[in-house]
């Protein structure tokens, strides 16, 4: 039996450390184990250093740090199977909830919203994040880990965007647009380039890339789609109808103003109403001429003051028949298309005419 000297124990310990056994706990175990082997199995005539290097390969296949890596993996992914199970359950829950949510929504049944929200959450908050963690463990190359994680994070944002859109929550369009844009034009090419070179992955990579580009491209093209021709026609007709109605009412108001009962208040209301109307006509003329809503914000400068002054007078009159003019739709005119913008303008013109008409008819009736 070989009695180990302190210098030999120190040598083994520092060698273990230099070969990648960084955890002190594991190093203590291996040091004791190696010391035991030397004490029990080494022959007196064997040289310590030569014997040590001879027995060390028992501990690994390629290098000693494998034990450290394996230990780390087992400790880190202790819950690997639980995570996999939760992922499978959340995947199944997503499928069931989404299908039933869609069916309920089609048949206008109660609870559709809840089912869809739960399905979306289960997919984007549980299923996809777990998939990222498990992929990080499975993939061997660092680049593959990064690329997969990037793709899955985009998928989380995209599915959250779809969920927000279905539920009419804010930021839905931004979430969907930017995640689709990055997914289709950055993730898929990077995925293809990084994996295409490996012969064993070539076929799957090509098929997956084609599928992802097709789906992403279709999704992307849907963002900038205008209304269908039939719906567009209906909206134009609607706008013309509203605008004509407002014009008729304005003409009628002009006649009512000539009535002896009309007073300075009605003249003031008419003046303010006409000021807004003139600005609206200016905006409508710009849209008709340029076929765009861009720059409408700059063009509508001064409108807010006119609307505020008008609303102030409506508030002072304190008549339930009168409705204040909302400024918010005007602030977002450049974000909508021309048809919708024209509709907003015609609606406001109609409201102005209705307000004035209500006021005039009321004071005339009271005389």
């Amino acid at each position: 039996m070989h009695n180990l000297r302190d210098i030999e124990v120190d040598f083994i310990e520092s060698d273990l450390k230099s070969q990648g056994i960084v955890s002190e706990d594991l190093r203590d175990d291996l040091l004791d184990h190696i010391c035991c082997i030397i004490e029990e199995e080494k022959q007196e005539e064997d040289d310590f250093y030569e014997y040590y290097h001879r027995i060390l390969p028992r501990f690994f296949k390629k290098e000693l740090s494998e034990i450290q890596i394996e230990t780390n993996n087992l400790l880190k992914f202790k819950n690997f199977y639980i995570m996999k199970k939760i992922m499978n359950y959340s995947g199944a829950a997503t499928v069931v909830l989404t299908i039933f949510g869609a069916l309920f929504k089609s048949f206008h049944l109660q609870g559709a919203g809840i089912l869809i929200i739960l399905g979306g959450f289960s997919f984007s908050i549980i299923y996809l994040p777990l998939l990222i963690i498990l992929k990080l463990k499975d993939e061997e190359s660092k680049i593959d880990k990064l690329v997969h994680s990037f793709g899955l994070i985009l998928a989380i944002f995209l599915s959250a965007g779809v969920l927000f859109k279905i539920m009419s929550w804010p930021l839905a369009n931004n979430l969907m647009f930017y995640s689709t844009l990055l997914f289709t034009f950055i993730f898929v090419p990077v995925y293809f380039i990084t994996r295409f070179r490996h012969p064993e992955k070539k076929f799957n990579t090509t098929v997956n890339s084609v599928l992802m580009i097709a789906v992403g491209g279709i999704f992307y093209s849907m963002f900038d789609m205008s209304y269908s021709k039939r719906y567009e026609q209906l909206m134009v007709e609607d706008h013309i109808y509203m605008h004509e109605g407002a014009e008729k009412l304005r003409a009628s108001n002009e006649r009512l103003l000539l009535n002896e009962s009309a007073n300075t208040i009605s003249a003031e209301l008419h003046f303010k109403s006409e000021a807004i109307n003139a600005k609206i006509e200016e905006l409508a003329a710009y849209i008709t001429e340029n076929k765009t809503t861009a720059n409408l914000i700059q063009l509508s400068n001064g409108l807010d003051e006119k609307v505020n002054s008008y609303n102030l007078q409506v508030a002072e009159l304190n008549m339930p028949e009168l409705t204040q003019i909302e400024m918010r739709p005007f602030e977002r005119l450049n974000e909508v298309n021309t048809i919708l913008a024209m509709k907003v303008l015609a609606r406001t013109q109609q409201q102005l005419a209705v307000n004035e008409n209500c006021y005039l008819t009321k004071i005339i009736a009271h005389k």
Partner: protein
Amino acid sequence: MYICLMYSSELIKGTLKTIILNLLRDKGRMYGYEITAKVKELTDGKIQITEGALYPTLHSLEKSGELETEKEFIGKRVRKYYSLTSQGQETASQKVNELTDFMNTMKFLLDLEPKTGNA
């Protein structure tokens, strides 16, 4: 990660935890080298647990609360004795029962035992 002189690694893959837990249930407390030596002795060298498989498993069992450790100084080095916690005792029984049941099923499946009944 196993070195098996007689059995293929596929055959005993997944039984390492059961072997360790059961051994510690019988012997009380053991250190790493002792475990490998004991398994080798009990199986006449047919199963030899490699250090590369043993220590990651011991550390994982310790982290999950099945094992606890005591440290003793032997000169300049530290020896860690592993023993079962109460949770480990339970897991050991479960694992052994599960493996026994599996082996019986395999015996029946492979027709290694005369069947009784339906004669």
